[in-house]
């Protein structure tokens, strides 16, 4: 017995040190995946560095940060006294994004609850495909809808001179953000185990009570994440807001005021500025600002979805 035990030990001692093909394949795949992952991070950092470098000289040399953030006058092309205040642009973006969420949250959560909790079989599959189709509509098409359908409708219904305003862009952005929010919210609902629903149903809860008392609380992180991603989507949208807001600098006092968004400003003006000019720098500074805000929103969404909460 002792002899055979020793033999086995000697054998495994050799085997434990032998690196076979599987081992090398595994290491190689690990390395490839690592490089892939790292390069994504490097690209993101690279983009940030590029934007920052383009904007930073301007930030340090010319810009009065306080004025930048608190002045409502944006007139960088005035040769004698250019103005670099983005307050009105922030107000434009914020008002449109805010209204978009007012439109999108009820729509998307309602749709998600219907698809996830009530619809069955074919209806459900059909609705899911429809939502994905809606999410795939290019933003310029939405802008076109804002321009050529919503604009005359708003003028007619509300009897206002222009229909390209916060209301128009807010609705368009809301409709744009709703599909992706629906999709994520539905995933969040689907992640709630059926045994929770069954347990609640077994105790006599109605369908709506089950959803309201058990499913929504259980899914609330995912739902909040869906909303935040929707905010990020609306906030970063460019083409549709350029077309539907009216693109005029304004701190809005009603939904019928035209506004201009941060993103649309960059898109509209960057092509006509000289590289390295103050105007160019100012636009990049807006870029940095957008980047930071988007980053924060996405980070929040991510943390919320992953459920950072007390145990």
């Amino acid at each position, binding site marked *: 017995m002792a002899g055979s035990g020793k033999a086995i030990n000697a054998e495994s001692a050799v085997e434990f040190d032998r690196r076979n093909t599987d081992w090398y394949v595994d290491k190689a795949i690990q390395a490839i995946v690592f490089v892939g992952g790292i390069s994504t991070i490097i690209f993101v950092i690279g983009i940030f560095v590029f934007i920052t470098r383009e904007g930073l000289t301007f930030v340090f040399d010319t810009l009065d940060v306080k004025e930048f953030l608190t002045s409502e006058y944006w007139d960088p092309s005035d040769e004698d006294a250019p103005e670099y205040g983005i307050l009105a642009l922030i107000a434009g973006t914020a008002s449109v994004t805010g209204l978009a969420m007012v439109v999108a949250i009820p729509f998307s959560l309602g749709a998600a609850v219907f698809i996830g909790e009530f619809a069955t079989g074919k209806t459900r599959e059909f609705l899911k495909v429809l939502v994905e189709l809606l999410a795939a509509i290019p933003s310029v098409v939405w802008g076109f809808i804002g321009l050529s359908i919503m604009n005359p409708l708003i003028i007619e219904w509300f009897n206002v001179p222009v229909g390209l305003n916060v209301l128009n862009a807010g609705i368009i952005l809301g409709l744009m953000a709703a599909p992706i929010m629906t999709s994520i919210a539905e995933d969040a609902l689907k992640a709630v185990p059926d045994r929770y629903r069954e347990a609640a149903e077994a105790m*006599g809860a109605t369908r709506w*009570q089950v959803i309201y*008392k058990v499913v929504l609380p259980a899914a609330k992180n995912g739902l909040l994440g869906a909303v935040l991603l929707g905010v990020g989507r609306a906030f970063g949208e460019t083409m549709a807001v350029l077309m539907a807001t009216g693109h005029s600098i304004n701190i809005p006092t009603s939904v019928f005021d035209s506004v201009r968004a941060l993103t649309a400003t960059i898109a509209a003006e960057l092509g006509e500025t000289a590289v390295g000019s103050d105007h160019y720098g100012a636009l990049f500074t807006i870029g940095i600002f957008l980047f930071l805000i988007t980053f924060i929103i996405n980070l929040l969404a991510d943390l919320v979805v992953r459920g950072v909460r007390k145990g």
Partner: protein
Amino acid sequence: MVSAATAVMGANEIEVASPKIVVRDVTIRYAGTPALSGVSLDVREHEVFGIIGPANAGKTSFLKALNRMDMFTDGMKVEGSIEFDGRPIDRLRNVYALRSRIGVVFPLPVGLPLTIYENVALAPRLGGMRNKAELDDIVERCLTRAALWDEVKDRLNSLGSLLSGGQQQRLTIARALSQQPDVLILDEFSIAVDPVTTMRIEDVLKELKHELTIILVTNLVQQAQRLADRTAFFLEGECVEVGKTSDLFDGRVQDSRTRDYIEGKFG
């Protein structure tokens, strides 16, 4: 109601108790294939009615039919008649009212992702109760009766789904009790619970049968022997027989398969 109950509970007078649930010729199908065929039996008020039988016997399907859970199971169809307190349950206008009178404990504990307090307060809240003091009272009473109060009284606001498996199963029982049900259904409740907790829950059940009717599905025949007044033996979609537990376990069976199963000579 309580006085009638205690009168009935005397000793072995269970026979005279009125039927709570009357099942006649019930067949349950999934997508046409029968999982349980032609079951007829009565469950009497204030008894512990045991159901034993191996896997695939149709026990869980039978329980589902009792509180109309077939409504959300795709393809599940129940034929025959089931009466609860004399009312055919397939013709109720408000099926939620039926379910709220039947507490269900599932094989794997389901601590809802709410606080411990909210888990137990949920059913009364669904019933429209708003009074905080009353809710506090119900929560404490149900947790105490489920032998869980001492372990959780200082952490009522932590998540119920984070309790240990055995604790969650007692939480599930507390939640079922908070419905103030007439009937408590337990489906293999001890499957994920240690022997000590199992014994504690069994003691709880012995107390509870003074107040309500218990249907106990179990794959531990000794558990049926310890708890059930009468026991049904299900086998491969058939109810082989129903009898007094003491008769079945003393070998006074009508069908030799029952004896074989109880004595563990199956397979």
